[in-house]
Structure formats: C-alpha cells, structure tokens
C-alpha cells in the first residue's frame, strides 16, 4: 500500500509496503513500486538464485513458482504480489539437501554455465506438476486424455527457458527420470 501521508509526485519515487511469503518465510519490504518481483528477490532479499538474463520475459532465467504457478519474475512487479506464496530456487533445496530435481540435474549434467539453471529447475518442477494436474499443452494430441510426461511434452512446455550452453538433451533426461519414466 502506498504511503498516503508522504508527498508524492513525478520527482520522487512512489514507495509501497508489500508482504508475501518467500520459501515459507513471511517477508515485508518497502519498495519503489517500479521494483520487479525479480529485483525484490535479488537486490532486496539477496536471494539471487533467480537470474536476470533479459529482464523482458524472453529467457526464463528468472522463473519462480508463485501461488503454485511458474512465472517470469522479471515481468511482474513485486507490489502485485501482496500475500503471495513465492517459491524460489533457494526454497526448493539447498547444497546439502537437494530437491530431487536439483539432484537429477547434477547427475544428468543438465546445465553448464549454471545461469539458466535455477529457472530451468523451477520450471521443470512446475511443468511436471502441470502435467500431473492434467493441464494440456500445444503438443497434447488428445485433450480428453490425461497428458503424459513424454519428451515432446517436456520440450514443448520447457521452451520458454533458454539455455545457450545447450544442455537441453540432458535436462529432458533429468526431468523424464523425475517424472518416473525410463530416460
């Protein structure tokens, strides 16, 4: 909510207070309302696992899971998420307590430089949940049947997450394994 008591004009930034849950912890911030959810995490909460590859919703490196859905955190303002439940890569698992998807990425070498990786993993976890929930995609042949975590479904749904190092083949294998199918 904007601080109605302070003089506000084009000369000074408009500030607002926002509170949300990040990785299970309640966080409260006073933010310039122009602050993206991504910059709120990276610059204000120092949760820099979510990456800024383009700041334009073109690369997916900033993917977070907000209220159960994956979003590009660079394309949404932090103040739009009052009360949201936000999961970032740091919330999925930690170096000595890896989430199964993080562990599968390590074993399948589903990354190289590592910069797109947190976004790929957050997207990967959310994609499998979408398939589990029966949400169809562009390549789902039969809209009346439950979609399956096939390589084609995974590739289609992951295509908003660019990897310039080209780890795609390995990422699909990591996700296929986690989806419980033979790689």
């Amino acid at each position: 909510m904007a601080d109605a008591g302070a003089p506000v004009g084009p000369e000074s930034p408009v500030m607002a207070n926002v509170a949300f849950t990040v990785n299970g912890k309640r966080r409260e911030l006073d933010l310039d309302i122009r602050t993206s959810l991504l910059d709120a995490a990276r610059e204000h909460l120092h949760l820099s696992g979510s990456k800024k590859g383009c700041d334009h919703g073109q690369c997916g490196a900033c993917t977070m899971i907000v209220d159960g859905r994956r979003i590009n955190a660079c394309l949404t303002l932090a103040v739009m998420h009052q009360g949201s439940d936000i999961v970032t890569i740091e919330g999925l698992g930690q170096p000595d307590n890896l989430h199964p998807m993080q562990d599968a990425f390590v074993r399948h070498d589903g990354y190289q430089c590592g910069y797109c990786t947190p976004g790929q993993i957050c997207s990967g976890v959310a994609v499998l949940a979408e398939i589990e929930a029966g949400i169809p995609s562009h390549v789902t042949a039969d809209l009346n049947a439950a979609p399956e975590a096939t390589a084609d479904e995974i590739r289609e749904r992951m295509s908003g997450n660019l990897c310039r190092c080209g780890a795609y083949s390995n990422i699909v294998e990591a996700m296929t394994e986690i989806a419980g199918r033979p790689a």
Partner: protein
Amino acid sequence: MKFDTPATQNPIDQLKVIGQSVNRIDGKFKTTGTAAYAYERHDVAPNQAYGYVLGASIAKGRIRAIDDTSARAAPGVVTIVTTLDTPPLALGQMNYANLFGGAEIAHYHQAVAVVVAETFEQARAAAFLLTVDYETEAGRFDLAAEAGSAEPVGGDSGEGSDSGPGDRVGDFEGAFAAAPVTLDHTYTTPDESHAMMEPHATIAAWQGEKLTLWTSNQMIAWSKGSVAKILGIPKENVRVDSPYIGGGFGGKLFVRADAVLAALAAKAARRPVKVALTRPLIVNNTTHRPATIQRVRLGATRDGIITAIAHESISGNLKDGPPETAVDQTKLLYAGAHRLTGMKLARLDLPEGNAMRAPGEAPGLMALEVAMDEMAEKLGLDPVEFRIRNDTQVDPGNPERPFSQRDLVGCLTLGATTFGWDKRNPKPGQVRDGHWLVGLGVASGFRNNLLAKSGARVRLEVDGRVTVETDMTDIGTGSYTIIAQTAAEMMGVALDGIVVRLGDSDHPASAGSGGQWGANNATAGVYAACVKLREAVAQRLGINSADAVFADGVVRSGNRAVPLCEAAASGELVAEDAIEYGDLSKKQQQSTFAGHFVEVGVDIHTAEIRVRRMLAVCAAGRILNPKSARSQVIGGMVMGVGAALMEELAVDTRRGFFVNHDLAGYEVPVHADIPHQKVIFLDEPDPQSSPMKAKGVGELGVCGVGAAVANAVYNATGLRVRDYPLTLDKLLDRMPDAA
C-alpha cells in the same frame, strides 16, 4: 615445467579419477542458486550503488552535447559520468572501438554515459532523462555492397585460427582448369550473437589507487592487463575476480564497457558501483561473429581425388578490426596438391566483430562442408566415402609435418555405422514420413588444439585437504571438476578432498577459457604444480620422490606407508608451477576431429525444418571427464543447429545497427528445437599435447554441425540453400509437390 618431449607414463595414466564421468563439483551450488555471479556479490563491498549504461542511438558521428541537468536532479542519482567528461580511453587487448570517452561515435549503442543512483529503478529512470545531441555521419553498413572494395588481408582470430591474405600451394588455377570435375559456389553466413545467458556485469570498488572488479570474464590475466591499459593505471593495482561466469562463447574474452564504466563510476561516486549491460544493449554494444561471403572451388579426378581446392572469404569490421578467419581449416582438412586460401576485409561501421565460439572454423565449415556434399553428388560418391578418399595424415601444405593424431576416418566410419547411414537414400527428396520429407546429412568437424602456458598453485592443508588456486575460469566448461580430478589423481586423494578456487587474478595466471584450449592447458598446469607438491611431500616425509606412490590418502615407498596429511602436520605445504611448451606442436600438427551426422524432417506443406536425430563422433585426445565433455559437445551441436536454422543478426543498412538485439528477436534454439543427442568419443591419449594427453573439445562440437544440417535438408528436399540461416522462406516456393 617445460613440456618439450612427448609424455611418457605418468600418474594421470592411472585413470582412477581422470577419465571418469564424475558429477560436477560445482553442481550443488549451480542447481541451488547459491553460486554467486558477478552482479550478485552483495558481500564483497558495502554500500554498492547501481550504474545504468546509456548507448549511442546513432551508428557513426559525434556527440555535440549531452544535457544531464534533469538526470542529475532526478531522485536518488549519485553521479553521472558521460563520455564527454572523459578523454578517449586506450583500447584493451584485441579491442577495436573505444569502450568509452570522447565525442566520436564508432558504432551503434557504444556507451555514452553511465548514471549512478541508489537503486536500479532510479538509475534507469534518470538515464532516460539524458538528452544527447548527435551529429550523424554516413557510414558503411552493408557487407554485400562493400565486398567489391574489400582488401586482401591476413588475420588471426586470437584463438590460433589464422591465415594469410592469399596462401598458395602449387598451381591452383592450372589444376582447377584441368580438373575433369569442378565445383564453384559462393556461400554466405550472417552476423551472429553470442547471446550468453548472463549479461556482462561488474561490481567495481576502489581502495585508494587499487581497483577490484568482480566481473564475468573468460580471460583473467588478459583482462587484468587490459583494465590497467584502458584506465592508465599500473597492472599491480588491478584485481579481477570471476569465480562463476554465466556463459561467454568468446563474448567475454575481453574487457567490455560494464567493467570500464563500473570502474569510472565507482571512482566518481566514491563508493562501489555495480553495472550490468541490459539485454537490448549487449548485441550492439559488445562484439559479434562477423558475417562472411565465402567462395569455395573444388577440382577432382573422376574417381573423387581432390586435385585443386580453394577457399576465399570476405568479411567486414571496424577500422583495424580483424577478418573472420573462415578459410583456416581448409589448409589442413583435406588432401589436394594445388591449394589456395585467402581473405579480404571490408571496412564497416557496424559494431565490433570478434571471436565467437570456434571463430573461423564455425562459419568456414558451414561453407566448405556443404561444398564437399555438393561435390560428392557431382562425382556420384557417397559423401562419407568422398571425405575418406581425401583424408590426409600430413599437413597438405607442409607434407613433412604429420598430424600428431588424426582419426577423421574413424569418426566418419563409426558415425556412419552408428547412425544408420546405409539407409540414406542418395537421391534427395525421396523419403517420406507422413507429411515430413526426411533427409540425412554428414559433415566433418575440425578445430585445432592450441597450447598455451598455464600456471597453478596447490596447497596441502594441515587437515589433509588439497587446495588448487589458479586464475583459470569455468564458463560452463567443467573446469572446476577436471581440475579437481587432476589434483585428486596426482595426490592420491578422493575428489571430495580437493578444493578448487578459480577466476581470481591474485592466483597464478592460467591459459584461461577460449579457443577450446582451457581443459588441456589448465589441467596440465595443475599437473605441473602437483609434481612439485609431490616432491615437497616426499622431501618432508623423507621419502624418495622418484618411487613414491600417492594413493588412497597414503604415500608409499618401499616398505613405508605414510598418510599424506602427515606431510602437512608441521604446517601446510605450498607448490606453484606452470606448464610451458616447447616446439612439439610446430613439428606435428595438433588438431581435433569429428564426424557430425544429422537427420531432419522438412514439412512438405510449410517447409518447416525439424532436427530429428544428431550424432557426433569425436577424436579429441584423452577425454578428462566424459560427462562434462559430452555436455560441451552437445552444447556446440545446439549452437550449430542455431547457426544452420535460425540465428541471424538483421542489419539495418540505413541506420547501421543490428535490429533484433534481444532474445526475442535474435532466435536461438529452444528445448523444442533439439532432439536427443548422441556423442561418441574415440578416446585416444595424445602424448604430444601435454602430460594430460588431452585436447580441446568444446568448440569441436559446433564445427561442421551447421553444414550437416544443411546437407540433411538437401537430402530431404533436393533444395540447396547456400545462404544461412536455412529459414523456410528460402525453401517454400521451391518445395516438391506434396501429392
């Protein structure tokens, strides 16, 4: 350690750790978001302010004035540094346009100001309040239009790929005129962008005269020197630190505007400043792979023996900028008594052209290997067989000089068997799978192995752990892991007993990451340091180092067996050394080879091209870690698909800039574009390369892939496209009848 005679048996040959597909040791940090990249180093300097870079909105001319009154008055602004406040800065290493300073504009989006504010939002808002008054000059932006005035020129990519303005062996013209079967075609490749995922970014902090840059850079020692040169300060006063780099592909070989502007801004602001180039700025502000126009002429006997081979390339660049060395591989890849390679360079006023993954070979093979496919068809030969018939085991221009190892034939034959090449219909346009026309394509991959001095320091800590320190970088290549594997093998300790610290210019200078030279040289440097450490350990334990065996955390000699950590009980042991090379690579040519095989489907109605299968068989020395090496190769293959099918910086030839300067306009392959990829290594330790017996592999993966895709498209459709990328508009009006 001087490496001037071929390697013999050494502890690396145990292959207990080296040669094993171990997981990356940095994996748990990269997958949890806890690996800190340059812009994220909140902890290294307090009170960091935000810098936002403004780029020039003209391609050529000068700035009359910059009005910064409103910007300076904007909320949160700490300081503004404009290019008019700064004298033209010196050029860095292999840098051809000023990164900052002075009124002249040499290319679009050249940096003209940096605005520093308390927050990113404030810096960005204030930057757009700057008013820049430009005086525009006409420029040259169209390579095709300038090609006629291009001058012959020699050149060196800075990554070992070099050629003279016109290198001749025998009498090319005579042999070409006499050849019964000839080919003469011109191919074009477009300007391409590295498009690494992490934008160029730097945090700069001054302590008195000393400057520290936490940045994202592939070549720490080069860049330390370049920063000093650009800023006119002593090298000793510069520290560069890049432990994690979010991709480079050559785009971060050199110091760029983020580092320079962060340093100038931090000085002006009297506090640490962090600067990231925004994504839309990167394409025109930094470097790109230059477009080429390549002419290939082949002459052969009727039974497919090449008698005349010529490869000429025209590219463009800014004043003093180098050519794209697209002809280099043609000097070495195939036999042929009469040869010509040459380059011409046109002066252009586009942004700076420079190295991108496999400069020279990547675009060069996209032409040569399509020409080989076309020639094979003219000769009525299988394209695999045509290549095998023209294999050479010696440098064709220098026959007394053999290759140290060369199994291109093995790559092609194993690849053909594995891929099911015998099922390829040599007549194009014949194979249908529903609405898809299906085709197979092949190309040779080639890239030299380069040797460069590389240093490291190793410490045996009191607790028995071994720490490796070098300024080597890991740009996704797996350096952390193969360096740890090297130290583990040499010191006889488990992989988790090794700590690796990279990317800090306070560490011994390494070969750095570029030209696929990193893995072999950097691990050889660690090997050299470990040899010294083993001697120090043996001496402290009173053991003869010559017969000491380091294994399982124990040093054994004769009947004695002493835990390694005992050597450090009275204090840590430190050893530092570098690998340095003699002339082995001059006596014998060291190169890496691949056979690339691709299957595509082309939609008969829309001409949409989909890659269905990919295989690379690579001969690239000892493979230090097959898991991370395979990733390097498949990554190159993905970039090769991009080059073949979609990547193209569109030039606005009136305004002089690359129009599609972000990740939506500049298309790179996405998940849906890439099938499962298969890689086979012909593991062949090369004792000529280093004590590691390894070679580069990271760029071999991209070399030849584009041509294999193009050749598969031809086999599918019967349509030959010689202008990359192969977008569907170049096929659609010629597609075979769908009936």
